[in-house]
């Protein structure tokens, strides 16, 4: 190799080493430095905007959604975490069990704004306690409602979104009859909460009186009837990579059960459809219209050395103005009751539907590895029935056996 190229390589190597070494000075955690906060997705800048006037210095780190498992596991393994972290409700039990979260019961005594009665019953206090301890404060909420392309429904003789599951099934059949490649509804093959929402609205539960996971109930069977029925009617697509947003925008799937994120996606990607679609309550069964309470809470890392500062920040974020400001920044709904009933928030008719739904929504049972064991098992069982024609009783029995013994502690 030419001399100059070799020299260049040597210089580059030395440069790399020196630069690397200088970047080596890891910031040491002092008890008075900025708070480190982990936030999901690319919402780093938004969070900085949110806390800009709090008087508390904050260092925000954005974590990609897909990588949350690795990030949290390695943090737990080493003990090096942030001060505050955002935790999706489905992961709450797992990380509490790993000892990653600081118990907050005694600490929030001094912070009345963080007390459970500030938040909807479905998510506050004991609803999201692990082992009887409160380990997180509700932050953002999310739920599932029905979205319909009112224009397409009207064209096919349906003047109002279906209010019950039976109506939905009938309407879906009509819409699917529009032609080849057209459907009435879409069941995401990754949506584990959906059959559970169906079960709830049939009046059932997935946890029995003793706190054990139990799907072997007549209401669950009714939900399975509905789920498999939609496939049998040919009303839903069978491919796993169906894109919800594009499906809705293009009209291929004019009815969807989804969350506010869909509404945001549709309005930003297809503003010309404004007025041609709307949100409405989740279809009801015999047990009413009961949807999922999803969202994220915020927790304090178990060995954070800035607990007081962290609580102060949590307090700040839980003020109704900040909760509403976050909604304006990101479209994620608040959890504080005062914010949820705010008039300007509810001026948007879609948001009115969401806040009304949240009043009766339920969280998924706070069980460790819920997604991985129950969620995956449920989806595998149902999908094997509707996609590969597996025997219903065998598949469901296998699922019941897998989930036996799980319980909320």
């Amino acid at each position, binding site marked *: 190799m030419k001399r100059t190229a070799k020299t260049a390589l040597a210089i580059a190597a030395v440069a790399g080493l020196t630069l690397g070494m200088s970047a080596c000075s890891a910031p040491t955690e002092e008890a008075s430095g900025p708070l480190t906060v982990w936030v999901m997705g690319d919402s780093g800048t938004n969070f900085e905007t949110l806390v800009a006037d709090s008087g508390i210095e904050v260092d925000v780190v954005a974590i990609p959604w897909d990588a949350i498992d690795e990030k949290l596991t390695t943090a*737990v393994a080493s003990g090096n975490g942030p001060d505050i972290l955002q935790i999706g409700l489905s992961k709450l039990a*797992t990380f509490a*069990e790993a000892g990653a979260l600081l118990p907050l019961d005694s600490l929030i005594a001094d912070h009345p704004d963080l007390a459970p009665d500030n938040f909807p019953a479905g998510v506050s206090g004991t609803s999201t306690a692990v082992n009887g301890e409160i380990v997180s404060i509700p932050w953002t909420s999310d739920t599932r409602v029905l979205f319909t392309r009112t224009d397409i429904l009207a064209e096919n003789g349906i003047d109002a979104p279906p209010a019950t599951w039976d109506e939905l099934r009938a309407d879906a059949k009509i819409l699917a009859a529009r032609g080849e*490649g057209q459907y009435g509804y879409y069941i995401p093959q990754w949506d584990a909460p959906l059959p559970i929402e169906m079960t709830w609205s049939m009046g059932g539960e997935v946890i029995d009186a003793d706190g054990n996971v139990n799907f072997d109930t007549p209401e669950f069977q009714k939900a399975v009837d509905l789920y498999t029925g939609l496939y049998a009617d040919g009303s839903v697509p069978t491919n796993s*990579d169906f894109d919800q947003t594009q499906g809705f925008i293009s009209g*291929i799937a004019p009815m969807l059960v989804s969350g506010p994120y869909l509404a945001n996606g549709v309005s930003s990607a297809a503003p010309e459809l404004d007025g041609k679609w709307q949100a409405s309550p989740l279809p009801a069964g015999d047990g009413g219209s009961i949807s999922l309470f999803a969202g994220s809470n915020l927790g304090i890392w178990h060995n954070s050395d800035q607990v007081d500062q962290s609580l102060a920040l949590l307090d700040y974020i839980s003020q109704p103005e900040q909760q509403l400001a976050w909604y304006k920044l990101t479209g994620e709904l608040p959890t504080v009751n005062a914010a949820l009933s705010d008039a300007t928030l509810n001026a948007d008719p879609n948001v009115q539907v969401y806040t009304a739904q949240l009043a009766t929504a339920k969280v998924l049972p706070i069980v*460790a590895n819920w997604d991985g064991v129950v969620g995956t098992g449920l989806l595998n069982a149902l999908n094997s029935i509707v996609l590969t024609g597996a025997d219903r009783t065998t598949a469901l029995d296998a699922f019941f056996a897998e989930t036996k013994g799980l319980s909320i502690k």
Partner: protein
Amino acid sequence: MRNRLVPYFFVTPAMLLLITFGILPIAVAAVISTTNMNISAFASWNNVDFVGLDNYAKLFADSDFWQALGNTGLFAVVGVPAIVILSLGTALLLNRSQSWFFRSLRAFYFLPAITAIVAISLVWSYLYNTQFGLLNYLFSLVGVPPVQWLSDPWLAKFSVALVAVWRGTGLNIIIFLAALQGVPKEYLEAASLDGAGEWRKTVSITVPLLRFAIFFVSVTTTIAWLQFFDEPFVLTDGGPLGATTSVSIFLYKEGFRLNQFGYASAGSIVLFVIIAAITLVQLRLRRADDEY
């Protein structure tokens, strides 16, 4: 005379790094595989119990593990020859001429190998999408109904393997091209004078002279495909219903999604043993020609 310590001086820095980041972790994993360690271990070490070979027994009784093994074997058996043959063929063709045209084509064939997997997943998920993807759109223009590239269990295996082959040929084409530069032109010219045709020359002279390169590519590609992870992970997440789950994906899900570290470690030891065994077999078969 030469200082006896010289070779150690040269070899130590790299070996230290390899041992620290390569060998040590696998030793740790071996130890963990004999326990029932899961995430609660980080709360308290008392939550970890020694279970001997239980994890291995559970592993071999787990139908999902066998499915993953089967998928991995299928991918390797189909993918490795595909890559070797395609890379060799393309390199032979590219070597036909040293004109600027041929030389600039090389960059095109190398593109898939240098694109980040994150970008590849975006592009191919889009191309393969059943309703809105480009491939099915092109098909629809000629009247072919939409194909469920990533949803049909068998087709999904093919689709995922295709992306991996597309991606894997790039580097190997370069290696073969480089090796081809070492084939003495005199041999080929002599054969031409004797009246040998193109095909005959290629098969009887060029290919045998590429023995080592073919061997090298086969071994490294096999090792890579037995650890097949990226493409099925980003395109189908191992689905549908485990149809494209390789052993690596199975381990990842157990270890990170379900936090069953003991179980996942046992699986990875099994994978390691399989890879080592297959590689040793390949090395033995080659013994005759080389000193190791």
